[in-house]
């Protein structure tokens, strides 16, 4: 048994299998991130979504549920992000004096790292994790400890933190997040970032739901024990 999701794609309603929905979200978000740096990006995405809608309607006519197979068939016709990447790479090189991109042979070189606040790993506003990313430290804990130390010993006041929140921009899209970590920005790294984010959201979502489930269970078990004549735990 699978969940289904109702979506609006290109102005048309579709009922999509849960797995197909995740794949479709990742696919469209990857393309969005990829094209977001091009002019006319909204129009391109509109055209692509409209065409995807057409393809899916052909694959599952009537009230059919779109399965992962329908989606894969549609993506095969439209092209995978890798197919886009091969051509679009050249397109970008000629249209922009690119500051953050070189050819695919840079292999892990740190290019143009920029300071951002990290919204995916924040206690307050992501300032410390942004700084940690900028210096290449995986764990923002040390930055937070140093920051607290400086604040409590009076070396640096909270105002400095607030100023940083105001002037350091938040990493909004995948391209920003990659620049924050100093990683090369190309279709492969963007796809990976989008996928990681999506899986992160899904994991956090399922954690909370199962937490609530087990809490309810414990309360119920505590109050109603089959071997006692009346509910226990409050007045009894």
């Amino acid at each position, binding site marked *: 048994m699978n969940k289904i999701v109702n979506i609006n794609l290109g102005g048309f309603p579709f009922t999509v299998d849960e797995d197909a929905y995740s794949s479709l979200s990742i696919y469209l978000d990857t393309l969005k991130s990829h094209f977001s740096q091009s002019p006319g990006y909204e129009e*391109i995405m509109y*055209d692509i979504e*409209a*065409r995807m*809608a057409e393809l899916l309607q052909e694959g599952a006519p009537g009230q059919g549920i779109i399965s992962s197979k329908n989606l894969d068939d549609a993506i095969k016709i439209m092209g995978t992000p890798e197919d886009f990447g091969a051509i679009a790479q050249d397109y970008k090189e000629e249209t922009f004096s690119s500051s953050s991109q070189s050819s695919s042979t840079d292999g892990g070189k740190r290019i143009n790292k920029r300071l951002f606040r990290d919204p995916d790993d924040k206690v307050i506003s992501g300032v410390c994790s942004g700084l940690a990313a900028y210096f290449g430290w995986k764990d923002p804990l040390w930055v937070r400890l140093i920051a607290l130390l400086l604040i409590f010993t009076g070396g640096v006041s909270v105002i400095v933190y607030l100023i940083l929140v105001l002037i350091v921009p938040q990493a909004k899209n995948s391209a920003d997040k990659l620049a924050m970590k100093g990683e090369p920005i190309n279709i492969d790294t963007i796809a990976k970032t989008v996928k990681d984010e999506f899986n992160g959201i899904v994991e956090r979502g399922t954690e909370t739901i199962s937490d609530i489930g087990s809490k309810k269970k414990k309360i119920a078990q505590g109050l109603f024990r089959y071997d006692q004549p009346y509910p226990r735990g409050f007045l009894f």
Partner: protein
Amino acid sequence: MKLENTKAQMRKGILELCVLSITSKEEMYPSDIIKKLKESKLIVVEGTLYPLLNRLKNSELLTYNWKESNAGPPRKYYSTTEAGLNFLKSLLDTWNELNHAVNESTQTITTK
């Protein structure tokens, strides 16, 4: 990987030429343009066409009409503009020059 890059560059310039040429004969929507290209053995996926069409439209070499469709959302039918036709002619001239040049230089290789 350099080979892939070079190949991609070659195909990209040619793709523009073919697209402008196809839409100069009759107005078409992207999916049919792909079909026509396939007939001439130039295989591209639909996704690479959309940004290209968008770019050509923004450069006013192409224009489009909306047409309602029974099969789904309304479609954009692209056709080449006046400026597009001139552009196409220049591209064709260059193509003929290059074609000649390639034939000449590769011929000298094989006869050696």
